[in-house]
């Protein structure tokens, strides 16, 4: 029975997480080839996470630490990288990686209301919370031009967090919740989608960059209600897909910046300009970074994902000397994963940790 339970979640995890790679190639991930970088040092990272989780488990208050975890899509991204990378790191203890995987799967089960691994949705609010939210939020009537401005704002914010956190940590700065069906409310095919940018100012990982520390805002939430559209969130919140044009389907919207709602379209346009310009200028700096700098930055970005959890138990989340030494002046590994070819589901299961995951839980 227990074995079946594990096989079921592994099956669900596999199908959902594959969506990150479906129709994609690893070569498209930027600014470095992360999957041939992480195995250089991931055993050290896994040990750190394990120590943190053991500390939490010894306190016997595992669920009280859920609030210190990043947004659900970032938890999924952390989990997926662990599953993909650990088979390439022989030093990683199997019982320890299992403890970590169990911790994150449990966290996702607790945080989400349904569809734990986001095969189609990323639902974290209960129906009464959505009712409350709709009642309290001052929604503005949209039109196609406003819808385009919202789209450009999302692009600017998304591009900024992509530069701040990199392609495989973007979820730390960008999640989407929903789609929440609002049928009962208006007898129409209405859905609510909430785009959340929880940390636009990760100064700790860009300490030398004054401009990150003075970015105007910390958190932005964009509430959008669409009519007659099918929306899916496939594994990660920054990857929503839609069956119709967003421009024609947006009915109402609200933009909340650090707890304050934007009232005028002119302010929306200024906000959009601000983030488009900052995203472009920040990424120019990323593109100018040398290989050694990019590796170190990726190390910091990866560890930063669990900074609040580590802080909550007085552990240092920052990469230590040993981690930095592991990557310093080291070339990336080669041929661990297919770089330039499309990844089909079978390849994903064979080469991206699913086979090993099933093996890991075979006798549990």
């Amino acid at each position, binding site marked *: 029975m227990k074995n079946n339970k594990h096989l079921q979640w592994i099956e669900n995890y596999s199908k959902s997480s594959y969506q990150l790679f479906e129709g994609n190639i690893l070569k498209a991930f930027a600014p470095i080839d992360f999957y041939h970088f992480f195995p250089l040092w991931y055993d050290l990272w896994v040990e750190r996470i394990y120590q943190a989780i053991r500390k939490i488990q010894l306190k016997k208050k595992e669920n009280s630490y859920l609030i210190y975890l990043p947004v659900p899509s970032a938890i999924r991204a952390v989990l997926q990288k662990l599953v993909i990378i650990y088979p390439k790191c022989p030093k990683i203890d199997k019982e320890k990686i299992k403890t970590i995987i169990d911790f994150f799967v449990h966290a996702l089960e607790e945080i989400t209301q349904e569809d734990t691994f986001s095969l189609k949705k990323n639902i974290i609010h209960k129906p009464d919370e959505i009712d409350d939210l709709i009642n309290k939020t001052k929604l503005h009537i949209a039109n196609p031009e406003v819808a385009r401005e919202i789209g450009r704002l999302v692009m600017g914010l998304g591009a900024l967090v*992509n530069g701040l956190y990199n392609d495989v940590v973007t979820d730390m700065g960008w999640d989407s919740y929903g789609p929440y069906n609002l049928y009962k409310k208006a007898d129409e095919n209405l859905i609510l989608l909430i785009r959340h940018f929880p940390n636009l100012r990760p100064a700790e990982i860009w300490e030398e960059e004054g401009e990150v520390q003075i970015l105007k805002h910390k958190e932005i939430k964009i509430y959008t209600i669409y009519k007659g559209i099918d929306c899916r969130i496939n594994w990660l919140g920054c990857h929503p897909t839609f069956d119709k044009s967003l421009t024609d389907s947006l009915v109402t919207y609200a933009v909340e910046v650090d707890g304050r709602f934007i009232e005028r379209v002119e302010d929306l346009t200024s906000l959009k300009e601000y983030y488009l310009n900052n995203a472009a200028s920040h990424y120019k700096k990323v593109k100018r970074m040398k290989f050694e700098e990019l590796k170190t930055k990726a190390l910091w970005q990866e560890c930063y994902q669990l900074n609040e959890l580590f802080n909550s138990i007085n552990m240092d989340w920052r990469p230590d000397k040993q981690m930095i030494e592991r990557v310093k002046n080291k070339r990336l590994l080669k041929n661990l994963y297919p770089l330039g070819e499309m990844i089909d589901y079978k390849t994903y299961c064979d080469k991206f940790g699913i086979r090993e995951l099933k093996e890991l839980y075979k006798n549990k």
Partner: protein
Amino acid sequence: MKNNNPILKGIGASIGIAEGVVKIIKSAKDFKNFNKGDVLVTEITDPTMVILMAKANAIICNIGGITSHPAIVSREMGIPCVVNTKNATKILENGMIIIVDGSKGEIYLK
């Protein structure tokens, strides 16, 4: 358009049909030539191009998938996007007027 054969195919990453003038972006030097309504053609977009993307009618990339950067941002802006065309930057030329079908992943000469 239906009678024509597509000159290029890839993965449709953001639905919709749009037309425009091809502008191939190989480096930041090419940014200044980009006008509102152009079709952005590049290897793969990155965040330095967001100001161009905000002006583009459509986006075409040599590589990438439905979860890649150009795909995500095109869907948010409601403009068509075709990725993984392999060689759009070689087959298309600056100044061509093309039609991009983001649902089918096809590109036609106008």
